[in-house]
């Protein structure tokens, strides 16, 4: 009997368990998944929780519900990976041996990386919305907030879901309009990037939307510290921005387990081949989702596309064949723009998001890089797709792992 072990039962890990259980012969392979937490969160929902669009119940479920019954599920803390010995050390049950290991331990926020961020004002006037606790605390704050300077801020790249802070700014605009207090709120979007987004065409479209909604934009801002006493963020060039309410996306780092095991880069992300998803240092260790250092977005859609590629490569690896399947960096993201509308972007390593139709060339029904109600409905429907299809490893019809170039106004490669 051989062992395939998956570390992390989030979006990527759960999908891999579901993908592989039907593909690996049960008489030869035992699949085990390890995660210390009981709850599986619908992380895209954290964007909506602060604005009372989703309830707490809509964004969390018991994780074990989504793990196939033939997969052994261990709910325990992982102490260490010992890649030279092909074992993982667990907190209570000790050594767990593997033949193949899949690292899917994701990314976390690290507000302690910036002076003054995780200090006495954390969850009082400084909030994140990348955790359940942060999104919920922010919801409670917004319910009673009387207005002032709202600063939506990104600490440094890369971050999970790079469009989420923009969506937050757009939704805040709608939220305060609906509450009849938009005139009492001054919204500023602050980013270390040179523009609203990481890719030029989308940046143009998104910049236009920020302007239209009266949201100020501060770019190239590399934060040095938070002066929480005087409510200011200060960057290395000594530029100061005042806030009454700071909603920040702290530095994103890989799980501390990766650092403990000596397997990460500067940010604890695992160096991984961007095409095959095999880790660079160990041929029987693969990595997927936010845990990798891939130059792709850290997003559920990316993990979903990666899962199809990784499944194929693991089957090839077992047969001793070359790893042929190549991930192209495909990402597909709805961008909520407020007022019941959304944009959709579809891109990969080589092609930036452009205008066009999706998934059917020339037909749609979804429009790329243009605001529409249909896109918003797509985003809302996605929660159902997530719980019922995506993490169960069921393919989404008409959306392939590799990006399609059809129906897109592609001009150049990046």
């Amino acid at each position, binding site marked *: 009997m051989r062992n395939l072990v998956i570390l992390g039962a989030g979006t990527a890990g759960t999908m891999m368990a579901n993908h592989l259980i039907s593909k690996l012969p049960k008489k030869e392979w035992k699949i085990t998944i390890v995660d210390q937490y009981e709850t599986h969160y619908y992380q895209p929902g954290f964007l909506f929780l602060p604005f009372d669009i989703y309830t707490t119940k809509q964004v969390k479920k018991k994780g074990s519900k989504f793990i196939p019954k033939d997969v052994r599920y261990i709910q325990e803390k992982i102490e260490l990976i010992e890649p030279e010995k092909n074992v993982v050390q667990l907190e209570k049950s000790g050594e767990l041996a593997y033949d193949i290991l899949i690292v899917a331990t994701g990314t976390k926020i690290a507000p302690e990386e910036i002076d003054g961020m995780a200090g006495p004002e954390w969850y009082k006037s400084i909030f994140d919305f990348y955790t359940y606790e942060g999104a919920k605390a922010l919801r409670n704050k917004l319910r009673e907030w009387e207005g002032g300077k709202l600063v939506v801020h990104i600490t440094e*790249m890369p971050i999970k879901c790079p469009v989420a802070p923009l969506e937050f700014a757009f939704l805040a605009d709608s939220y305060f309009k609906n509450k009849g207090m938009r005139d009492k709120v001054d919204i500023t979007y602050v980013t270390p990037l040179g523009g609203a987004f*990481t890719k030029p065409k989308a940046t143009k479209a998104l910049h236009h939307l920020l302007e239209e909604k009266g949201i100020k934009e501060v770019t190239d801002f590399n934060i040095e510290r938070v002066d929480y006493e005087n409510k200011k963020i200060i960057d290395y*060039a000594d530029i100061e921005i005042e806030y009454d309410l700071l909603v920040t996306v702290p530095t994103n780092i890989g799980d501390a387990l990766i650092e403990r095991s000596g397997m990460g880069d500067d940010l604890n992300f695992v160096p991984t081949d961007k095409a095959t998803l095999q880790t660079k240092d160990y041929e029987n260790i693969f990595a997927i989702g936010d845990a990798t250092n891939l130059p792709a977005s*850290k997003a559920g859609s990316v993990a979903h596309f990666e899962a199809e590629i990784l499944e194929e490569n693991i089957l090839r690896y077992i047969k001793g064949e070359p790893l042929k399947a190549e991930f192209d960096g495909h990402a597909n993201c709805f961008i909520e723009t407020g007022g019941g509308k959304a944009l959709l972007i579809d891109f990969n390593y080589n092609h930036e998001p452009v205008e066009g139709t999706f998934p059917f060339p020339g037909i749609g029904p979804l429009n790329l890089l243009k605001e529409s109600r249909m896109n918003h409905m797509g985003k809302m429907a996605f929660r159902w797709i997530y719980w019922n299809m995506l993490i169960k490893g069921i393919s989404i019809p008409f959306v392939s792992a590799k990006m399609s170039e059809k129906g897109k106004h592609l001009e150049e490669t990046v």
Partner: protein
Amino acid sequence: MKKLIANREIDVNEEGYLLDFKQWDREICECIAGECNVVMTEKHWEVIAYLQDKHHKEEPLSIRGIKRSGVINIKEFYNLFPGGPLKKSTLIAGIPKPKSCI
């Protein structure tokens, strides 16, 4: 496109970044620095060498990386290349503008 730098025709992109590192040398470097109102000192050269080394090893450049470089701290980096230090220093170093990608 071509740009005349130090009386030589140099291949650059629309933002002025060199397209071929082989065309870079100290003279070109000082000319571009001058255009950016930067006067090269020993410390500048040290940073430029560090950036070029990282680039040739295909390691991504970031503000965080500077912090851990052991060559310079971020505050000094901002003082040496005021206003967008990564953009300016890579322009002067003759390497591509860092993609904050993703």
